């Protein structure tokens, strides 16, 4: 809902409507132990990082304040399902899906079960999960800015 597709919330708000960013990407690096949820925003030229960060937080907070509507939830599920199916078109994709189920989830059969269960997820369940993960206390922001010519020249070459 936040970053998958051009109609996703962060993309629409930051890239299309406010034109603060060139691109927005997001992914959940889900592991056996705790992983990271990462959003990566490339700013449009001339934009101040702080302003873009606040616009980004505003969208996260909006999703925390209210559960998503039925249409938005259905869209996210359809996109996820299409992505999972596309992964399984290739042998490599199939093996990665199996490995993820067997190693990270300790149950190879989940490779078949999870896409079905995905369809049953409710807006409230999504909302509850977001409230645990996307809290303000749980955020780290890294700003990467281009160095001056001098700094770059001194940079590591080899």
């Amino acid at each position, binding site marked *: 809902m936040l970053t998958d597709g051009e109609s996703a919330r962060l993309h629409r708000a930051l890239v*299309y409507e406010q034109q603060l960013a060139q691109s927005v990407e997001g992914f959940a690096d889900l592991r056996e132990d705790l992983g990271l949820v990462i959003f990566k925003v490339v700013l*449009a030229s001339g934009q101040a990082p702080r302003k873009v960060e606040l616009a980004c937080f505003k969208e996260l907070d909006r999703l925390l304040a209210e559960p998503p509507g039925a249409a938005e939830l259905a*869209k996210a599920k359809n996109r996820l399902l299409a992505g999972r*199916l596309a992964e*399984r078109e*290739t042998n490599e994709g199939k093996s990665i899906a199996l490995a993820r189920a067997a190693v990270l989830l300790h149950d190879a059969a989940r490779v078949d079960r999870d896409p079905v269960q995905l369809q049953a997820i409710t807006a409230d369940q999504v909302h509850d999960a977001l409230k645990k993960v996307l809290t303000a206390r749980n955020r780290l922001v890294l700003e990467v800015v281009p160095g001056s010519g001098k700094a770059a020249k001194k940079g590591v*070459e080899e």
Partner: protein
Amino acid sequence: MNPFRLLAVYGALAALALADVQKPPPPGVPREVKLVEPVEKTLGNGLRVVVIERPGVPLLSVRLMIESGAEMDPPELAGLGSMTAALLTRGTAKRSATQIAEDIEALGGAIDAETGWDATSVKLGVLSNQAPAALEIFADVVRAPAFAAEEVKRLRRETLDDLRVILEEPRTVALAAAQRAALGSTSYAHPRVGTLGSVARIQRDTVAKLHAVHYRPANAILIFAGNLTAADGFGWAERFFGDWKNPADPLPERRTGEMPQHPRVVAIDLPNAGQAAVVLAKLGIARDSKDFISGLVANGVLGNGYTSRLNLEIRIKRGLSYGAKSNLLALAQPGPFVAQAQTKNSAAVEVAQLMRQELDRLGADPVAPVELTPRVSTLTGDFSRELETNEGFAKAVGELAVHRRPLAELNAFARDARAVQPEAIQEFARTHLQSAEMSLVIAGRLESFRAALDREFKDAEIIAQKELDLDSPTLRTAKSAR
């Protein structure tokens, strides 16, 4: 258990593992492959429709190819085709940009467009049970884009921002400059995404005109691949594109241009570059050349895959780069051959000379079977893996269709590649890949390789970053050329 005993067991296991590594199982005999046959028909308006039935996974890939690509960009408007394609999904007569994204994504789908050489592809990927609804949106963006002034302005700003970022990368700069140096002012010479100068000049009306002229059914191929039947595909083609009309004016001719008089050596000074990019380029072959397959295999030996010669010499043996490779782009007309590597600034000239040596060695000595077999396998393996997905299959069929090749050639590729003889590779290299005929471009921090450049390439042209003009065959801004 006695700990020494355990170690002994481990030692035996390690020896066993080592023996395994030293003697991998030999590869099996290649199997004959018979791929699914595409079926096709042409609609009354001239639209060629191809269907590839791949039942199973409930997905569908659709590819509409307009048989005009970036080669149709006017000389002063590099990037016009790319901008036009990108604007298709930014609003139509009946949907705004946000509605298009919202509607197609609600179906679990996506529409993308890209402008290549010889063709522009508009692609749809969707769950196959949502095909009719998605195709209605797909046909709408292809046939009736609005090109609203505000959307053109928005995309222009986004594209310029992207260009500012990528033009700081030595690799992008060297590749674009080498393409120019090798192809002069001909129609495959400019960056398809455009330049800072050209993109700023692209206006709404020029975009709308390109669309009106080139996006027509008699200049298009519609390909379906995935979970559908031929009857589904032909029915949908008729329903969504059957009443698409051709404009009265004939398609414009491809423009010609001037090839450069001689190969060039160009060094572009990027004072902030952490590494240098080294690129060799020259005109290669057309897709209908009888040497197409032997050319691909020759390029495979030289620079396709980790253990191809360029990477073997430059990365594996000498540790000078994270990757050296080459590419032979065969198009409707002869396209570029390009060899490239990125290296530390101080090693740029050494890497250029190594690349040149490898080009000439390919023509001088026959390739031994022990080297040739894995290079051909890399090529046929890449090809087979591309065909695993609906989108990849549609792309491969589309490339054949655009270049007027029989679609059954899909089945012949692996066999033909395996039949290429060492003499044909040598012959191809001597005819098309001689180092003396290559233009060389190095983009990087000049002060780190200036001395070596002066020693090895006395005639090198030096261009400062701010003097570089990718729109000009001279590669220089008008001001700096004076």
